[in-house]
């Protein structure tokens, strides 16, 4: 019994220096000569485009590694306000970025770097024969959209107002990827997603162009953060996203220029 107690104490004692060792490691990254790991918090819809932009940026800036934390914008802003270590924040809409600004988490003014509009998608065989938003709003059609609480739901509401239609979705999802999932699985007859989601889904969906799509344009802002561990590379990353190369990658993914 005594031997076991000693072993436990030894284990506890051994783990203590290991913990301090961890914090010492991250402090070492601050030295100018060492490698820099830049942490970018990006809205989920940016995933593919930002992976590419990150690779391009790393190629241009030797010694810098870009690491992404990808989630819904409101999750990200909550994490940032709660003190998560981040250098750059790219939000899927202005109100969410404003929450970060309001909390004093942003360094300088956020800059718009991309736009996104909604489009209507159906399963590839379009079982309900939908050719317009009015068709999707008709009774008996399983339309799925985003809940008004999330950015894509706000855009959906604006689109409905501009089209003069009362949408009657069977489900209001918390994220645009959930909407897309319901369409690709064939559960929904139609879903309102961003153009970039439809581009990414490719053949898994049939896209119906919307007449009033431009009435609900979502603007994506980006900013370096006040608590950034690496302010210099953070600003450089923001410039890269706004630059010609970054904009080209975003354009390929279906994003518009702000």
């Amino acid at each position, binding site marked *: 019994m005594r031997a076991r107690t000693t072993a436990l104490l030894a284990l506890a004692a051994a783990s203590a220096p290991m913990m301090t060792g961890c914090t010492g490691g991250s402090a070492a990254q601050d030295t100018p000569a060492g490698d820099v790991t830049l942490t970018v918090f990006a809205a989920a819809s940016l995933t593919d485009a930002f992976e590419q932009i990150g690779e391009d940026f790393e190629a241009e800036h030797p010694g810098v590694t870009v690491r992404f934390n990808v989630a819904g914008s409101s999750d990200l802003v909550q994490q940032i306000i709660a003190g998560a270590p981040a250098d750059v924040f790219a939000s899927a809409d202005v109100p969410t970025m404003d929450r970060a600004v309001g909390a004093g988490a942003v360094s300088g003014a956020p800059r718009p770097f991309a736009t996104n509009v909604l489009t209507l998608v159906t399963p590839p065989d379009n079982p309900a024969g939908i050719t317009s938003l009015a068709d999707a709003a008709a009774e008996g059609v399983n339309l799925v959209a985003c809940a008004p609480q999330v950015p894509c739901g706000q855009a959906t509401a604006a689109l409905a107002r501009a089209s003069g239609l009362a949408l009657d979705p069977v489900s209001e999802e*918390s994220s645009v990827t959930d909407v897309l999932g319901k369409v690709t699985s064939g*559960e929904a007859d139609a879903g309102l997603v961003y153009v970039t989601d439809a581009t990414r889904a490719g053949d898994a969906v049939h896209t119906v162009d919307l007449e009033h799509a431009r009435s609900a344009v979502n603007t994506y802002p980006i900013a370096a953060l006040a608590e950034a561990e690496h302010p210099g590379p953070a600003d450089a990353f923001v410039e890269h996203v706004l630059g010609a190369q970054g904009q080209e990658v975003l354009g390929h993914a279906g994003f518009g220029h702000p």
Partner: protein
Amino acid sequence: MPASVTRDVPVRPPRALTVVGVLGAAVILLPFVALVAGVDLTRLPRLLTSPAALDALGLSLRTSLTATAVCLVLGIPLALTLTRLEFPGRSVARSLVLLPLVVPPVVGGIALTEAFGRRGLVGEHLHVLGIEIAFTTTAVVMAQVFVSLPFLVVALEGSLQTRGEAHERTALSLGASPARTFRTVTLPLMAPGLLAGTVLTFARALGEFGATITFAGSMQGTTRTLPLQVYLERETDSEAAVALSLLLVVVALAVITLAYGRKRVTIS
């Protein structure tokens, strides 16, 4: 008698383990303490009585109760079959029944969609008959039954195995029919497991999230249960999300107290 001597010695774990054990308790309890501390008591009544919150609470209670009833109807015969009937592959069957306990609920939701979705294995035929399950309250109940049924089966199996078959064998040898033996002997034998199992089944159904959001969707009053409402509120009003979380914790706590309190009484 030597037995009485050993009985007098209190059994104690090593002190160092107790210290680690307290740490383990803190890991479980600290987040809940923080949750309670994070609630703004002045706003609490208004947050909990918003139409969306009340709809979600009502839907959660209705669907969880229905799911529990379905679990009882299916689970009692299933547990009996698995413990009292000899058949090839029984041990495999007993393991497979536990699958929903160990797969992530979102995987359960995808599996349910593959089975009962409009293009699913079974759903395809239901669709032809004009029966649609996705986006309905039925889908919510199905998701809850899927994830919580194993809880009931495990609890009942435990009861049936510890009590053994002797009582039932006696009843049958005395000429009681299998139906009468089940009613008057087996069912009372199951009682402790039945109570605890039912309560845990209800609690698991109440907390179901992943399979519901994947398979049933999210619509106020139809499919948006309390956990889904918490998830959505988080997007705009984290205080409301915390308040609703507290409500779920209180309900869960009441349920656990009921299960454990009762269980101890019946066993001792």
